């Protein structure tokens, strides 16, 4: 594109834009050729201005000649749709961080041509389209940035985020923050990381890696802004390194001193330096890299920056110091050998995992499963009848049980000679031995049992079985037959035996109640009374 031609076309387009703006709404009702021409020109201008922000659009410029309204509209739509979404994001971001807007505005002060234009457009335009365009332009720039960032990778973005926190370009920065990272969060994360691991070493390494990436991935960054960004990034890296080397606060102080000594016009009136100084002011407490140092200084220090080897050595040194310190200190109680309770802190043994042998099996934890298993076992045992009863261990007697000789307390029927005779016979000829005492008992028992069995059989058997004839001696007494035969009556009544006089117990003449005369009745009553009185007197006499 020829700039002059562009300039003229843009001027005419601007004029047409203004013209459009100035026309009254009612004029739009009737289709007019000049208005449409103006509109087309204006839209063309806008399209071309927005073009850089959407590289994906297939059209370099809006094709209006010979195209239908619909077609033109579709072209615009193609371009604007992606821009709209990014615009929305931007708006949301500004909602959350209203200070960004102010940054935007500040950024706009020292901006380049495009930026100036953009800002003007933000201020002046009120039409929705314009606004849209403005936003689109903003978004375009942001998109550019974002796309570049995407190309370069996350680390790059982060780096930019950390470094451009200097707010070289508010919009760019806003763009960065908008897409993936919030710069403040990033700062915090970085701080934590560094503090955690190596102090500030990690920052350095990160910066270095970022640097490397930057150098490698620089491609087609023709924008001044990009270059400036890179430059600022370098500065930031150097600043970081400086800080890491010299210690956190020291670095800051040194920087400050240096800045004060070498304060130049650029520090105060160039975008970068302003931002960096402001940054410093803000982030002095936070041990963050500042790009506030001079370029010169940064350049110088970059050359003297600690190499990898030096960093490793420092690491080692710090480790050694730690270990020496640990050795000098008194040992922890766990390492001291025999320690009684008095020599260690209270409840300190609870924290330590002590290892000792448990001679006792730990008590079984009674859970439901355990109880269920036990119950099942019990049930099976009961059903089987398999009880673990203690069975008496029978001492197997080697010899037959000795027959216990019962002490016979009656006069022995056998003479002493016979006793010895039997003994002798037993010794010499056991077969012909007579029955012993126990055998006789056995005989008697067997006889009794036989009798019993006989009786039971007789009761139980259906057919009659007569008693077995046992020839026994029966005693016949020489008694007269009459005596044997006489049988006394079983029941004898008393009435027949006793005479009435014998039964009666009483005296004299007995008269019935009916037979008594009045006088006799009176006499009877008088007698009774006399008796009673006599008794009463007696009782009274006794009591007294």
């Amino acid at each position, binding site marked *: 594109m020829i700039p002059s031609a562009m300039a003229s076309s843009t001027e005419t387009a601007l004029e047409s834009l203004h013209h459009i703006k100035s026309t009254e709404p009612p004029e739009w009702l009737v289709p007019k050729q000049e208005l449409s021409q103006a509109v087309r020109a204006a839209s063309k201008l806008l399209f071309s201005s927005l073009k850089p922000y959407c590289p994906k659009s297939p059209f370099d410029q809006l094709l209006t000649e010979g195209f239908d309204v619909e077609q033109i509209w579709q072209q615009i739509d193609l371009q604007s749709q992606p821009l709209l979404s990014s615009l929305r994001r931007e708006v949301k971001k500004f909602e959350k961080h209203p200070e960004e807007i102010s940054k935007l505005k500040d950024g706009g002060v020292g901006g380049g041509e495009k930026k100036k234009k953009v800002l003007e457009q933000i201020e002046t335009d009120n039409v929705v389209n314009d606004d849209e365009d403005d936003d689109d332009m903003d978004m375009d720039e942001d998109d550019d940035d974002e796309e570049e960032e995407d190309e370069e990778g996350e680390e790059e973005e982060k780096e930019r985020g950390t470094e451009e926190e200097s707010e070289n370009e508010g919009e760019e920065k806003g763009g960065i923050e908008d897409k993936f990272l919030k710069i403040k969060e990033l700062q915090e994360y970085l701080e934590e990381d560094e503090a955690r691991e190596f102090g500030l070493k990690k920052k350095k390494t990160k910066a270095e890696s970022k640097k490397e990436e930057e150098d490698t991935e620089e491609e087609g960054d023709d924008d001044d802004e990009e270059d400036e960004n890179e430059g600022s990034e370098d500065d930031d890296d150097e600043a970081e390194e400086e800080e890491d080397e010299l210690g956190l606060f020291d670095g800051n102080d040194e920087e400050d001193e240096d800045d004060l000594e070498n304060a130049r016009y650029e520090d105060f009136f160039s975008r970068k330096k302003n931002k960096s100084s402001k940054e410093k002011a803000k982030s002095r407490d936070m041990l963050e890299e500042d790009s506030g140092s001079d370029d010169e200084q940064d350049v110088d220090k970059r050359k003297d920056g600690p190499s990898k080897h030096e960093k490793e050595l420092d690491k080692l040194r710090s480790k050694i110091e730690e270990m020496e310190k640990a050795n000098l200190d008194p040992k922890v109680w766990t390492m001291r050998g025999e320690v009684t309770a008095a020599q260690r802190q209270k409840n300190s043994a609870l924290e330590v995992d002590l290892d000792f042998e448990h001679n006792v099996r730990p008590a079984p934890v009674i859970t439901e499963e355990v109880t269920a298993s036990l119950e099942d076992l019990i049930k099976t045992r009961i059903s089987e009848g398999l009880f673990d009863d203690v069975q008496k261990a029978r001492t197997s007697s080697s010899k037959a049980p*000795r027959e216990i*000789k019962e*002490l016979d307390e009656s*006069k022995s029927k056998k*003479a*002493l*000679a016979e006793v*010895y005779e039997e*003994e002798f016979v037993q*010794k010499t000829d056991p077969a012909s031995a007579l029955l012993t005492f126990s055998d006789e008992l056995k005989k008697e028992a067997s006889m009794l049992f036989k009798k019993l069995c006989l009786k039971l059989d007789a009761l139980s058997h259906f057919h009659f079985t007569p008693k077995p004839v046992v020839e026994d001696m029966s005693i016949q007494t020489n008694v007269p037959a009459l005596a044997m035969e006489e049988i006394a009556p079983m029941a004898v009544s008393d009435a027949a035996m006793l005479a009435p006089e014998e039964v009666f117990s009483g005296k004299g003449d007995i008269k019935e109640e009916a037979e008594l005369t009045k006088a006799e009745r009176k006499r009877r009553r008088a007698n009774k009374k006399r008796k009673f009185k006599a008794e009463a007197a007696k009782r009274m006499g006794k009591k007294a």
Partner: protein
Amino acid sequence: MSTEAPTSMETETVASKTKLESNTLPPKPKFEPLKAHEMSDGRIQFRKVSVPPHRYSPLKKYWMDIYTPIYEQMKVDIRMNLKARKVELKTRSDTPDVSNLQKCADFVQAFMLGFDVPDAIALLRLDELYVESFEIKDVKTLRGEHLSRAIGRLSGKGGKTKFAIENATKTRIVIADTKIHILGSFANIKIARDSLCNLILGSPAGKVYSKLRQVTARLAERF
């Protein structure tokens, strides 16, 4: 000699050798065993057993039971000297053994002590039976009621303790007031004597029974 199986010839030769050496001595005479009669150089031996007054009527009662075995089997003459109140025993010519007379004398003596004839006859039949006598006062000095009680303890109710001891130890016991006589073999006499002594000393009958049982069981085991 190395050879294990000497021939008869060899032994004979050896014997003949010895004989030849002692040639001067005459051959040994062979005698038949002496008869009882001859042992005492043809003299008759006597034994006299005095009869206590309380045994006079039992003697009269059981005279034939006593006389028959002595005269028939032991071949010893026996007679009662009423005047002297003694039983006299005399060997005959055909008394087979010297000890018969002594046995008969012991038998009669046992009867006099108080034993029954059938029990006493065991003495005649068995060699190793003896009669031992001792008094209560030998064991323990008891006086008056204690003595009576001791005697009561010894015999038991209806004599059951005594019978128990008799049956357990295969002995016969006679408790005559304060004197106690035991008839039986040596070991049995010992057991009976121990039980009786324990009873005299005061142990209850049950204890004596239990001890008796143990001892008799042990005795029975041996055979």
